[in-house]
């Protein structure tokens, strides 16, 4: 009797949870879905089918790529997306190149000095970047880094969170493997490359994701350091669309779809690996 009641109760609870999840999922997906669908309409049709809403609000039966052609022809946002791709891949590559050896050193060469140095890394990662973007901007300008890829990339490559994540993961590598490799005469760099890196791929994917998302979504810093049209990145270019006198909503939504979906795809792809490495980092455990 009580068992049956608890079974009923459990079913109700599951139903409630599905409902909550479904509402959350709808709220998460609808804005982007609407943007993508609308970007496939002709520019004049974007604000149609809204009064009243119909199934056609969220579906397009005759998709057209007009807006994407405009986007390509316009040059401005095309260049901006290219700039975003360049600065983001530069950030991921340089960021990993800096973070992986540092994390390795913090794990393998343990000493009081290294521990103090690591505390210092932690402190620097508690400084929120947006808060110091304005003072850093004036320094970078005086160094002549305004309107350059280097100016866009450099502040993003020193990422304390990426180092932290990798370090937590590197701790999981059995010390015997390191000792075996060393006694075979492998150099420290060789140990890192052929023992730690292959064993910690999920953490490296996680660190790459952190670096990627940080740079791809960055808005305030590019606005300050790279205002020239040929160095504008995608988020800034999109923002500038809004201020224009005659807004082409079709092209704007197409730009938003491209800029928005690319990292989301990367993110969802990396999510399972990222979750695993976060769980091991102890950051959330």
């Amino acid at each position, binding site marked *: 009797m009580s068992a049956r009641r608890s079974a009923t109760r459990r079913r109700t609870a599951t139903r409630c949870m599905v409902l909550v999840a479904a509402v*959350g999922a709808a709220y998460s997906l609808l804005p982007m879905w609407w943007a993508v669908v609308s970007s496939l309409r002709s520019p004049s049709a974007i604000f149609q089918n809204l009064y009243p809403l119909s199934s056609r609000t969220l579906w397009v039966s005759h998709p057209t790529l007009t807006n994407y052609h405009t986007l390509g022809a316009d040059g401005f946002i095309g260049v901006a997306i290219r700039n975003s791709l360049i600065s983001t891949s530069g950030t991921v590559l340089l960021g990993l190149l800096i973070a992986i050896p540092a994390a390795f050193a913090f794990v393998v060469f343990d000493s009081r000095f*290294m521990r103090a140095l690591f505390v210092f890394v932690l402190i620097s990662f508690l400084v929120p970047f947006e808060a110091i973007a304005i003072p850093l901007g004036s320094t970078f300008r005086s160094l002549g880094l305004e309107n350059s890829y280097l100016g866009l990339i450099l*502040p993003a490559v020193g990422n304390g969170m990426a180092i932290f994540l990798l370090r937590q993961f590197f701790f999981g590598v059995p*010390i015997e493997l390191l*000792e075996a490799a060393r006694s075979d005469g492998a150099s*420290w760099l060789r140990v890192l490359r052929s023992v730690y890196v292959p064993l910690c791929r999920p953490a490296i994917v996680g660190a790459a994701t952190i670096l990627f998302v940080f740079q791809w979504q960055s808005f305030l810093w590019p606005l300050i350091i790279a205002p020239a049209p040929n160095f504008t990145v995608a988020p800034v270019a999109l923002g500038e669309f809004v201020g224009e006198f005659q807004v082409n909503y079709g092209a*704007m939504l197409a730009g938003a779809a491209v800029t928005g979906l690319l990292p989301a795809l990367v993110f969802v792809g990396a999510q399972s690996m990222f979750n695993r490495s976060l769980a091991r980092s102890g950051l959330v*455990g």
Partner: protein
Amino acid sequence: MEKGGSVAVRNAPVIGARQPRRGVYARRMWIKRLTIVAFVTPAVVMLVLTRLWPTAEAIYDSLFRQSLIGGTSFGGLANYVTVAKDPVFLKGLTVTAIFGLIVNPFQIVLALVFAVVLSERWRGAWFFRTVILFPAGVPSAVAVVIFGIALRPDGPVNGFLHDLGLPSQPFLNSPDQALASIILIVSWIGVGYWVIFLVGGVQDIPTTLYEAAEIDGAGWWKKFFSVTLPLLRRPLLFVLVADTIANALVFAPVQILTQGGPDGSTNLMMYDIYQRAYQQGALNDALAETVMWLIPVILIVAIQFRLLRPNT
């Protein structure tokens, strides 16, 4: 956090069957030292130059006054007084405080609800988990642009209200609704992001604890308050702190959609600082304002740490 093991390496710098001669040992020590320097220096230098140095410089420069002919002179706290007397700053501070008091609890409660729901074992949970995380990867400028169009007077959100028989709303054009609209926009990204951290925490709670609670006859709510919530303390503290800081620094929606308006109703601190530095050209005042804004934020974060510290 520490897992040990590395101690073994420190105590055994020489690995191998034979005991090497003194010169070899010294050479190895040198190689090791050089390796440490080569591996750690790039990261440390970048962190100093792009994180710590600008922080120190901001504090230092905020004490210097800009003169009209160019150049600066020491002014002590004069910039701070100038900013503190500015009514635009005071209104902005109020707006940002209201924003923070609403947006942080809103996002954390929602993230917690989704994290708990998505960690339960039911068919299809993985699908919803991926979908709800999706906005976390979308750049804020993209979300802002899409919501900016969706919230227009002739946009789809008003179309939806129309279908429900409700009057259309001005949203971003109204001093009463603009801040609430911005809260909804930043939460679209924020909630998904914080769910990631909380789902991990919920899944790490041993199922045996729930089973024990069930044997004691605990219902769903009872289990939530006596098992889930206490064991989520660490990730919750992290999310609370990180969310508070993130929301204290919201900038893109204001810059793109409202420029602080209408009527100063969305003049969040970061936008006011940016405005002061780049539109008014008062860089040193802006630095003073940054310091003045970060001190209360750091204080609030410190209080959160104290109140929620695990094992107290």
